[in-house]
């Protein structure tokens, strides 16, 4: 049971049609998450990480590829089976303000999934209350907030409601889309600890989407770095921080301001900004900003290769850079 694959994604693509061409939001993503583990998906805004999370849950149907959950390709599921599957796969949102219905109290928000999935009947008030109370305890929400509206609560508590709502159906897999980036640091740490505890207690599997490498560092087993819809690096968390290979990953790491005045990391300040994901030309999509870029980087697709065992990177000049 140790290495049981819970989710496998193969060649997942999600393109959007825009008036100016095909927007390659997610382009040929492959990964495996084992049961009880966490995959960190890291990238900057516009890299397609949120779209990836939603495509995996089929909130946005992928253009092509396979999403194999517990051995079955869920992209082939029909609507009724999909609804059943939502009990197993859940989503935690970034913005605890807009992800809660302002007209629903805490208890209504947490009970909502139980009712619509028919876990507990709407008429069985006692059972509903009991389950809501259990869930509130689980996420550390005081019972006195049971009838509060979201706008009366601060960001940390709202995010706890969001977590309770996602947990109410006892899912196996949760996509966490930047769950702490809207929160203050001290609250952020509380929520991260809570998510870690819940994972241990309930054996949850996470796909943790974030722009902040420091957040996923101690939380993830594996990390995938995305740039403009593509994977540029994929390896274990330890390997990534010990030896980041891709120039983008290294720039990303060095751009994080370290809270230590005497720690002056070697700074790689990137030129330019993320280019357009619409009809990208073949080749490395990072080449335009990369200090190592040569003609070798453009013209043909750069495959993800295993540079070291378990450490994948998509860079044409990786051998020269790391010699």
């Amino acid at each position: 049971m140790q290495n049981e694959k819970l989710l496998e994604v193969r060649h997942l693509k999600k393109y959007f049609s825009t008036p100016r061409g095909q927007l390659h939001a997610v382009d040929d993503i492959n990964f495996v998450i084992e049961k009880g583990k966490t995959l960190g998906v890291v990238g900057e805004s516009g890299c397609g990480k949120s779209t990836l999370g939603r495509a995996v849950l089929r909130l946005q149907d992928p253009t092509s590829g396979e999403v194999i959950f517990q051995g079955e390709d869920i992209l082939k599921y029909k609507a009724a089976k999909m609804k059943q599957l939502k009990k197993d796969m859940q989503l935690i949102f970034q913005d605890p303000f807009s992800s809660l219905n302002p007209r629903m109290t805490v208890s209504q928000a947490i009970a909502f999934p139980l009712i619509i999935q028919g876990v507990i009947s709407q008429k069985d008030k006692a059972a509903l209350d009991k389950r809501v109370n259990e869930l509130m305890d689980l996420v550390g929400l005081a019972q006195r907030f049971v009838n509060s509206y979201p706008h009366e609560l601060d960001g940390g508590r709202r995010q706890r409601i969001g977590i309770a709502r996602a947990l109410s159906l006892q899912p196996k897999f949760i996509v966490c889309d930047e769950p702490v980036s809207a929160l203050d640091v001290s609250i952020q740490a509380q929520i991260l600890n809570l998510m870690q505890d819940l994972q241990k207690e309930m054996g949850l599997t996470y796909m943790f989407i974030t722009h902040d490498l420091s957040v996923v560092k101690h939380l993830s087993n594996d990390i995938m770095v995305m740039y403009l819809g593509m994977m540029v690096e994929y390896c274990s968390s330890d390997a990534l921080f010990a030896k980041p290979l891709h120039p983008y990953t290294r720039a990303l790491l060095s751009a994080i301001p370290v809270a230590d005045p005497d720690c002056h990391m070697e700074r790689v300040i990137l030129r330019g900004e993320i280019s357009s994901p619409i009809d990208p030309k073949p080749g490395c999509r990072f080449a335009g900003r990369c200090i190592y870029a040569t003609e070798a980087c453009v013209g043909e697709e750069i495959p993800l290769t295993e540079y070291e065992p378990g450490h994948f990177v998509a860079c044409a000049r990786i051998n020269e850079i790391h010699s």
Partner: protein
Amino acid sequence: MTSKELVQSKELVQNSEIMRRSLWMDAWRRFKKNKMAVCSLVFLMILVLIGLSTIVIDIATDNAIYDSLIIKQDLTDRFGEPSGAHILGLDEFGRDILLRILWGTRYSLFMSAAAIVAAAMVGTIIGAISGYYSGIVDNVIMRLMDVVLALPYMLLAIAIVAALGPGLVNVLISIAIGYVPEFARIIRASVLSVREREFIEAAKALGASDRVIIFNQILPNVLAPLIVQITMAMAGAILSIAGLSFLGLGIQPPLPEWGAMLTNARAYIRDAWHITAFPGLMILLTILALNIVGDGLRDALDPKLKN
């Protein structure tokens, strides 16, 4: 764990005054501060009470008062000036104007309310479907609404009444049809913005059906603009009812509808000012009150003003 409990208990003391209040109570608190709106609301409430009591009286007396005082003409005392016995005077058929105005409340207020509620219900459903599904459905529905909107409202009402014939129910229908597109548009716009919020996606991720999402998640969030619109539209509807009656297409004499009272009195406006002045004043005050309440509600319900 003990330190955590300690913190929580401290927090409990700190926040012990946390008020349980819903968004509606918040809105009411803000509304209360608007003195004009509160006065207008009180005025409307009194009208509603009057309207209800006249109906109760009619039922209790089996229309005895209605027949003898409101409808029955007394040609011996026409155009009586306002006096102690008849505060607002008598009309061209010797009927007490005050009583006729009070008895007319049911037509102006209740009929317009009925017409607008009907329009709002239909418009909300059309608007919600149009906004939620967008695409072709939206296009077809909204273009249909545009066709209705393209006709001048009064002309449309006149056309409908002319086709169906004058009368209470037909007036009601014509007004309701005229107001549907306005509601549909407002609800559609609100739905479009609510639809993009993350909690809708959350509901989808939890496996909620479209029906649940529209009725359970979206519609409660568009109630605020809906209520404001209902208030504003009622003012318009009262005017329309009065207007249709004035043109002789709406409620027919001798029913004491305010607009109909105006029509009949029009001929005598030079000789007896009071028979036109008071029904006209009532129409004016009621519409003014509805508009002020509508404005007040909009301010109270608009979350952007919330600090």
